[in-house]
């Protein structure tokens, strides 16, 4: 009974304010004399009492103590506080929390509080600084969680916040940790605390440097930098310096790899957009300025599919969108060929103008049907998110687009190499008049080739809808780049297009960090203009009589 009285006394003391600190200390000391268990329970009481004032500094202190002392109910209290569900009754000095279900429980005892007395309770206010403190405290609480995954996550939280308050809990857990991954994470977290603390010993700092060097990423770099600034010990300083230069070199390497990845990703988009153009340009030697609009139609097909599909099929929307986009763009392409282009074969410059007109009409048509604003196309679950691969951050949708462009490329090669239609198409590309003399219906080949090229552009549109805004102007932003790829790679040769796309995409992304995105593009345009002077028919020019004309 004595301990109970003492506890109440202590709680009241704290409620009265900080100037009674001496009395409080005396009370606590007295309690220590009675029994350890009582002291511990009393410490929880102290902590809870701090919530009664509902003042930010007191609340912050309470949060810190909860995380250090880690009483069984701490997790529930902190969660409630973060969710604005922690209540206090300042007159009766009772702290309580509401569960997510709405029941009001006494924070100390866990007993339910009757509805009649619930009216006296008011919420404990929290601000943003407190919320982050709550998160940190909850992180260190879960350090002791029986689930290794939870411990891993908690260690990660501590690594991010490097909150020194978590150190005791961390070290306790580290001593008995059995899971190797969790142990490594805990060591890293401990190293991060050593790195940011002013009072760490040289030994602690050296071990922190070793651990962080192993991790070797941006965070580790800035933490070691922190050590180097705090340390006075020369051994620590030199260890930090050598670790820093090692991490620098490593990061630079990953950085190049990341840019290469961006480059490959940009190349795959370029390839998808340009490969259809390579077919129509290669076979017929005409410029289809409406090619970008075929891409745009493909993107809108995706939008329509997602709007029409029932929710349980949404995850499969792309499986419907790709064939639909191919058909829609292909049919529109065939219509353009039949209605406009076939009358202009001997006048390629005027084909350019006519197809530009078609592109204006298609843009306005889509604008009238769907509105001028961007349409929202969602990523299916398997295409959203990102993952880490070593020091690389890889977004899933970009990865799938690379896969798609590779599949499209292989598919087109198969069509060209292994089907009768492909054979005829290649024949017409190489020498139209000779092919016609051999009995190939060039008009039919033209029509189908145009449909194929446009259909592939439609598939490109499906891919672009996943990474770009779906708007009537979508195609416009890709058309000039696509021309550059085709002209650079050489006409009538898909490998040329692939190589051109890869080179331009990589060069673009590798130039970007050096001279900026816009400057990089300009440099490339100028380079391609100059390149065409040297090789007017592109990198991989077809040889033959027809192309010389």
């Amino acid at each position, binding site marked *: 009974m004595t301990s109970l009285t003492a506890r109440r006394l202590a709680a009241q003391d704290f409620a009265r304010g900080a100037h009674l600190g001496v009395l409080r200390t005396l009370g606590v000391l007295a309690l220590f004399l009675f029994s350890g268990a009582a002291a511990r329970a009393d410490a929880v009481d102290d902590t809870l009492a701090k919530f009664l004032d509902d003042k930010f500094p007191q609340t912050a202190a309470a949060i810190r103590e909860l995380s250090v002392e880690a009483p069984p109910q701490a997790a529930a209290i902190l969660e409630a506080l973060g969710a604005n569900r922690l209540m206090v009754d300042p007159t009766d000095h009772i702290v309580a929390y509401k569960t997510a279900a709405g029941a009001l429980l006494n924070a100390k005892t866990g007993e339910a509080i009757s509805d009649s007395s619930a009216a006296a309770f008011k919420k404990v206010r929290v601000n943003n600084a407190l919320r982050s403190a709550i998160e940190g405290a909850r992180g260190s609480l879960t350090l002791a969680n029986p689930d290794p995954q939870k411990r891993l996550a908690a260690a990660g939280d501590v690594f991010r916040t490097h909150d020194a308050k978590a150190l005791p809990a961390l070290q306790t857990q580290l001593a008995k940790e059995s899971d190797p991954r969790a142990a490594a994470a805990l060591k890293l977290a401990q190293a991060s605390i050593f790195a940011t603390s002013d009072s760490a010993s040289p030994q602690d700092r050296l071990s922190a440097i070793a651990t962080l060097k192993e991790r070797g990423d941006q965070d580790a770099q800035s933490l070691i930098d922190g050590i180097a600034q705090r340390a006075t010990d020369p051994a620590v300083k030199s260890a930090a310096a050598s670790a820093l230069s090692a991490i620098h070199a490593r990061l630079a390497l990953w950085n190049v790899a990341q840019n290469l990845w961006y480059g490959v990703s940009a190349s795959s988009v370029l390839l998808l957009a340009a490969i259809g153009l390579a077919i129509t340009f290669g076979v017929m030697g005409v410029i289809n300025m409406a090619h970008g609009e075929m891409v745009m139609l493909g993107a809108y097909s995706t939008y329509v599919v997602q709007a029409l599909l029932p929710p349980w099929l949404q995850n499969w929307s792309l499986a419907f969108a790709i064939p639909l986009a191919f058909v829609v763009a292909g049919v529109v392409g065939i219509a353009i060929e039949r209605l406009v282009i076939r009358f202009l074969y001997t006048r390629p410059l005027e084909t350019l103008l006519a197809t530009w007109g078609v592109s204006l009409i298609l843009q306005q048509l889509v604008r009238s049907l769907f509105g001028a604003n961007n349409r929202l196309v969602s990523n299916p679950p398997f295409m959203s998110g990102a993952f880490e691969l070593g020091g690389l951050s890889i977004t899933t949708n970009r990865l799938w687009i690379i896969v798609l462009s590779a599949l499209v490329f292989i598919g087109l090669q198969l069509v060209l190499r292994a089907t009768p239609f492909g054979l005829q198409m290649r024949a017409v590309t190489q020498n139209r008049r000779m092919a016609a003399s051999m009995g190939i219906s060039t008009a039919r080949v033209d029509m189908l080739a145009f449909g194929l090229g446009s259909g592939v552009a439609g598939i490109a549109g499906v891919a672009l809808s996943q990474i770009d805004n779906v708007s009537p102007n979508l195609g416009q932003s890709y058309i*000039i780049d696509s021309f550059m790829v085709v002209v650079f790679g050489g006409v009538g040769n898909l490998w040329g297009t692939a190589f051109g796309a890869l080179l331009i995409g990589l060069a673009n992304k590798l130039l970007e960090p050096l001279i900026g995105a*816009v400057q990089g593009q300009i440099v490339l345009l100028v380079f391609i*203009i100059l390149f065409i002077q040297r090789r007017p028919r592109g990198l991989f020019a077809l040889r033959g009589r027809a192309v010389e004309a």
Partner: protein
Amino acid sequence: MSARLDQLGLAFVAILVIAAILVPVLSLAVSANSPFYLPPYLVQLLGKYLCYAILAVALDLVWGYCGILSLGHAAFFALGGYAMGMYLMRQIGTRGVYANPILPDFMVFLNWKELPVAWWGFNWFPYAMVMVVLVPGLLALAFGWFAFRSRVTGVYLSIITQAMTFALFKEFFRNDFGFGGNNGLTDFKDLLGFSLQSASTKAALFSASCIVLILAYVASRAIIGSKYGKALVAVRDAESRMRFLGYRVANYKLFVFVVSAVIAGIAGALYVPQVGIINPSEFAPGNSIEAAIWVAVGGRGTLIGAAIGAIAVNFAKTFFTGAFPEYWLYGLGLLFVLTTLFLPRGLLGLALATREKKPSVETPAIALEEGVDA
């Protein structure tokens, strides 16, 4: 057809001379209540059409007579416009928002301390006018020298001219490039001391546009009519044969390309004071293609037709974008398609062909035979 075209040319020049005199009279000397009164905004609009007509004549000179479909002429136009815009910016002086006597407002805004070298001398009108001619001319010379020497022709040439204007488009958008970035140059006050807001300045600019159009037409006509011009047309119709005959095809093309770019630059310089702004959107690839359709609608290889096409299409644009903004792009798109399909020689070509009852030859026979890009 040529004689008929010469007669039409005389009529064309006569109409322009009359317009150059009549429009200022109707705008300045006639009372505002009279039905013949031309308000200043209309004079300005007509002046703008004339600038487009000059650009169309320039494009027709290379496309109609030499077979070079340049999709970069809007770039030459815009460069001339920027040179004029820079002069006008320097004339603002202390009347700008920041009242800096040397630096234009946007430079003060960007916290620049000194005038970039590219802007030196632009407060002096003759220097600015030299630049109006020199900048587009030199760009065309460098670009054409590379392109024609290595025999880039047909659609390839069109695409790289488009790439050129696209590169400039992107470059001028950058604030750091030093030409006003996204916003371009605007808020002009006066030209040679005359306020750009006054009706008399607008009338004078209109007359100047008429005179420049006449000069551009006469100069182009003179080039086409000369022996050099005949060779040019021959290059258009059978480039390889001309080369085999010993003509230096690249030089012929280069000369006419540079002349054309200079005319386009002058058109741009007249355009900017009349519309009051020049910004990077003038470099947009679509603008150059639109200029090509003016020429196609009017009739390429006729010069007059190009000018008429530019005025007609832009009149239609002003009307439709005001009355039915939704449908203008359909109209413009159809214009592209229908003109190329059914009016390969344009309105003027159609008129001339029906008058003279001659069968219209769509593409020269030799070009068809060789499969040369027409």
